[in-house]
């Protein structure tokens, strides 16, 4: 198979894996404010853990560039929030704050996939022999990201099938970016720390500005803190070993 096609195919597999993250929500029926709060905490822990992992990688390429990317990520979320604040949003049955949060979540996770796609492409370019292993690693690592998205969408009334759909959607930039990054490794490599920093900054900020405050409102502090911190540690270990 042509290598470009192969990279694209692998990228697509990793995107589809994200949809698997919606599956645990098949087993959730009652969606009380407490469940929403706990799901927020879960998503927060997953995203913070993922960001920690990203920053470790980013600082290998360049600390300043990663920080600059991170600042951009924060500004990006602030700008998106501002843009959304002026509109009446109706997403399915949800409106107001719920709708804004869902849109923001999908935008953040989709934006962060761009830099992941570049990372896939660049690592393929660095020696195609490990391609299959890298793909499996990224596909597996996408599952908790789908879980994070579904944890925000599902308690707000989105069906499991649609949660899976939006999870896959959020990962589509991966194959789309992996191919050009693979073809033009030398051009993309310097951009990588900025992209990684952007993804981490945007996710951390999203957790701090949207997910955590809401979790604290409807669930006891120690429970939120336990859930977020244990999920964070779990996510870091997960990424280390898979």
């Amino acid at each position, binding site marked *: 198979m042509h290598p470009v096609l192969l990279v694209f195919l692998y990228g697509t597999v990793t995107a589809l894996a994200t949809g698997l993250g919606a599956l645990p929500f098949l087993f959730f029926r009652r969606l009380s404010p407490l469940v929403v709060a706990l799901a927020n905490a879960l998503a927060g822990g997953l995203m913070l853990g993922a960001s*920690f992992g990203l920053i470790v990688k980013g*600082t290998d390429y360049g600390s300043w560039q990663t920080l600059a990317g991170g600042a951009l990520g924060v500004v990006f979320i602030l700008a998106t929030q501002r843009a959304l604040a002026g509109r009446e949003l109706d997403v399915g049955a949800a409106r107001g704050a719920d709708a804004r949060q869902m849109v923001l979540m999908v935008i953040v996770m989709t934006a962060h996939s761009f830099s992941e796609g570049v990372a896939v492409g660049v690592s393929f370019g660095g020696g195609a022999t490990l391609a299959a292993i890298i793909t499996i690693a990224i596909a597996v690592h996408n599952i908790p990201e789908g879980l994070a998205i579904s944890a925000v969408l599902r308690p707000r009334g989105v069906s499991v099938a649609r949660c899976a759909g939006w999870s896959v959607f959020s990962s589509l930039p991966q194959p789309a970016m992996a191919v050009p990054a693979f073809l033009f490794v030398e051009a993309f490599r310097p951009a990588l720390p900025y992209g990684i920093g952007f993804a981490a900054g945007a996710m951390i900020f999203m957790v701090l*500005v*949207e997910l955590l405050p809401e979790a*604290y409102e409807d669930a*006891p*502090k120690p429970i*939120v803190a336990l859930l977020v911190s244990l999920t964070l*540690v779990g996510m870091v270990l997960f990424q*280390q070993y898979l």
Partner: protein
Amino acid sequence: MVLLYSSIAAGVSAVGVLPLLRHDRIPVVAIGWANALASGLMLGAAFLLLSASLDYEAWIGGVGAVLGIVYVWFTHAAAGTEELDLNRLDERADVYGYKVLLVNTLHSAPEGVAIGGAALVSLPFGIFVALAMAVHNIPEATALSAILRSRGVRLDNAAGLAVMTNVTQVLLAVVTYAVVSAAPGALPWALGFAVGSLIYLVLAELLPESYREAGHTTIAVLTTLAMGAVVLLGDLAR
């Protein structure tokens, strides 16, 4: 060296009392900001320790982190302080003042482990983490002494108490350093423990109140800024 730097970190907390010289009552928003900065500094330090612990077997750091989380959760539960609101200037009950002091004392222990562990990774790294903790102790002392002041404690006594709550930090920094230099295999465990307990502290103590006192956006911006600064500087120090 560890003794010196962790003592500096503890002593610096007296500086946190200074704003109270000028103002009789600190606006509650400012305490929210101070806690947000402290959160960012601690998260940044936790990240640096985490990335240092990944040089060893990752699972050891992970188990250490879970132990750290459980430790802080358990001390809160045992002390009956898990739902304690740390910034209530208007709370009058006697027991509240003691509980705040107790929490601040317990809370310094993981910070000490962080300094001791970091010093064993490399001396500049240890100094840097000690500095980050010192900077974090200032707003912590401001919040603490504002509470003590509002309860009629004299300013110099408030400063003394603020420093005293950080003595556990010095003690544990030195103990961690001594124990881990004797048994180097314990280093990833100590690092993991510090990571888990610092993150749990931020999530259980510092952030929840800050959100109530200042806007979500302000808190999130301050926390991310402080975290970014610590990560960048710490990365250069390693």
